[in-house]
């Protein structure tokens, strides 16, 4: 089972081309990072997969069994008038689910992100990292098959980002879902994902698509190992050469 993009392109306002025809397959259960210079269309790609945007040409094929999405934005975007628990419940309010089921799912994801003690806190009472976790929990509460993250931890400090990345990997392994993760940090992409796809400047096309050869279990000490640094250097060089050819 896989997500298939077949020569997908996207134009905005008639003539701005965000993506040049691009084909891509992502298998169920993969953890993929999408990288590229700003404006290269990586967010657009994410939105095309989620169905928030329609491709100008080509097609996005997703098997029905996989067609449920969780979406995490760069900012938490919680509703300020709701408690953490009520924020996480939000997506379930639009589905026909019994209240017992709703409650058990909320409890489950709150445990998953480790915010049991803050169920009734308002977003204004939470730290940046907690809000981001809440946003992640809201995305997970519907049991999505595909989790899409658009530069989710770009606004948090590096130490916290490391920790959130590790949590995300743990969640991915626990739930066995497909994760597509947009980032502009090479080290984050190498650290968090199993496969890295790099896009060129606009109109974006794939310039690099490779597996990350690192162990499944990744702690923060991984960042100081030779294999991690080698992979990072190699990928950084790809981006360097991309700049020169422009």
């Amino acid at each position, binding site marked *: 089972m896989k997500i298939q993009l077949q020569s997908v392109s996207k134009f905005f306002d008639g003539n701005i081309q965000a993506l040049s025809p691009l084909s891509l397959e992502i298998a169920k259960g993969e953890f993929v990072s999408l990288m590229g210079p700003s404006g290269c269309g990586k967010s657009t790609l994410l939105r095309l997969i989620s169905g928030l945007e329609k491709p100008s040409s080509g097609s996005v094929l997703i098997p029905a069994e996989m067609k449920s999405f969780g979406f995490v934005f760069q900012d938490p975007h919680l509703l300020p008038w709701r408690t953490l628990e009520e924020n996480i419940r939000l997506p379930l309010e*639009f589905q026909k689910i019994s209240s017992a089921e709703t409650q058990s799912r909320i409890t489950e994801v709150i445990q998953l992100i480790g915010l049991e003690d803050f169920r009734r806190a*308002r977003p204004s009472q939470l730290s940046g990292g907690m809000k981001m976790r809440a946003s992640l929990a809201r995305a997970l509460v519907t049991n999505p098959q595909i989790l899409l993250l658009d530069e989710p931890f770009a606004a948090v400090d590096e130490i916290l980002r490391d920790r959130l990345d590790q949590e995300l990997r743990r969640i991915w392994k626990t739930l066995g879902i497909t994760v597509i993760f947009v980032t502009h940090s090479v080290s984050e992409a190498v650290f968090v994902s199993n496969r890295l796809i790099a896009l060129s400047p606009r109109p974006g096309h794939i310039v690099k698509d490779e597996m990350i050869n690192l162990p499944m279990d990744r702690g923060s000490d991984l960042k100081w190992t030779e294999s991690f640094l080698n992979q990072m250097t190699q990928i950084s060089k790809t981006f360097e050469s991309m700049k020169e050819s422009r």
Partner: protein
Amino acid sequence: MKRFDAWLPLLPAFVLIATLEGLSQTGWIPAYLAPAPSEVLQAFSTEFESLRTAALETLAASFIGFISAAILGVLIGLILSSARWIQAAFFPYAIFFQTVPIIAIAPLLVIWFGFGMPTVVMSALIVCIFPVIAATLAGIQSTEKPLLELFSLYRATALQTMMSLKLPFALPQIFTGLRISAGLAVIGAIVGEFIAGGGLGGLIDVSRTRQRVDIVFAAILLASAIGLLLVGLIRLLRKISLRSW
């Protein structure tokens, strides 16, 4: 220091009142131009009945006008925000409506609604509805776009999106609009009463022709007290409903 700050506005009032009193008592300001503050105070007790009746009438009219404008204004704002073409087609009329001076419409209102309360209520409503419409519209349009996308991703209906997202998001701005409207409602009611009679507006008009400036001033003070009352009410409501923000 903070406690002292709160009382500080009383100082200029005291200085102004004392100066006016002095100027009136010594004959610098003739009584037919402006009454001595003590005379205004006296008018409150001698004219108590007529002032009270008038103030209650104005209070009722501006309150009813304001509440109707609040409900109607939010509804119109919601309708205007529901589709781009509706807004494009109708919002200019809301602006046009706002620019027509109420004093010019008031005689028409008398023709349509007669002399009395309905005309005054309508006048208050017309004057104070626009800020509510504009604030509702602006508030709804300020809804964070990613959240709108999230709602569409989860297949929320238009009604669900309105009630769970747009309206709560717009609430702080709606309250700002309501606060402006509360003050305007009293102005609208007084203008209506000038033409239709009754209330503080009617009393001011009658007292003016009788050269009773003391009553005019007493009525003005009461009118502004009504305005403060309505604004205070909105502040209280805002505090209660935005407690969780």
